[in-house]
């Protein structure tokens, strides 16, 4: 379909909005969601190229991306839980132990 070209723009948009979510949201879970969004935007891109080319590498790549994303989400959640227990807050900007002390 010729209109699939629009999907490129969609994937770019999704990617950048995911970036925006990462930049702006204070909650750690929201950042994780932003990451998932970015990954999905990349997936969309891959599938799109797969649709437009011969061969099935795109799908496989997207499949493995999904797998890795899942792993990373799981570990991320675990880390967030740990930091939440340690710092008693889930707002990222309050965790600044690595701040450069004068």
């Amino acid at each position, binding site marked *: *379909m010729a*209109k*699939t*070209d*629009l*999907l*490129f*723009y*969609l994937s*770019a*948009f*999704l*990617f*950048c*909005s995911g*970036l*925006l*979510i990462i*930049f*702006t*949201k*204070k*909650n*750690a*879970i929201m950042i*994780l*969601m932003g990451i*998932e*969004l970015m990954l*999905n935007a990349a*997936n*969309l891109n891959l*599938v799109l190229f*797969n*649709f*437009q*080319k*011969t061969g*099935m590498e*795109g*799908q*496989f790549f*997207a*499949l*493995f991306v*999904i797998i*890795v*994303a*899942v*792993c990373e989400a*799981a*570990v991320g*959640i*675990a880390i*967030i*839980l*740990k930091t*939440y227990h340690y710092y008693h807050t889930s*707002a990222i*900007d309050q965790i600044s132990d690595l701040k450069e002390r004068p």
Partner: protein
Amino acid sequence: MQEIVLYIFMGASIAAVLVMILNRNIFYGALALLICLISLAGIYALLQAEFLAITQLLIYAGGVLVLLIFGIMLTNKISGKPVLTDSHNWFSGIIISTSLLGVLLFSFQQTEIMIAQSNLNTTRNINNIGIELMSTYAAPFELSGVLLLVCLIGAALTASSFKKKTNG
């Protein structure tokens, strides 16, 4: 017909993303992400990547989202009030995102993407995927298995809290 569905899915995902950006409620953000993922799955299906669409639905919508919602529950004090977060860095974030978007869009415009017509006729998609998975992509397949295992163990260990045995 397909185009309309395509536009519906596209619009849904865009709307969901907008909700995610603008709404301060985390839970609504999670639900919006769910809708976005589902619409993405639909788009995958329209793009003749059915296995991937199913996988997407199963894993993302059913696993990762649940996981995220669990995370939300566990990291916020649930007290009946909706969990709201603040947001900051709007200015610089929008600048950078917009510029990156501009770059990507512009580069998309510049490329001429040839559409291979021969790919339009694939019937036994899942069959092929299975065969390829076991032959051509066997190594990544096994490795992803190992990866999953490691992540499983790692996440479990990380998330649990060890009580140190105190002497005396």
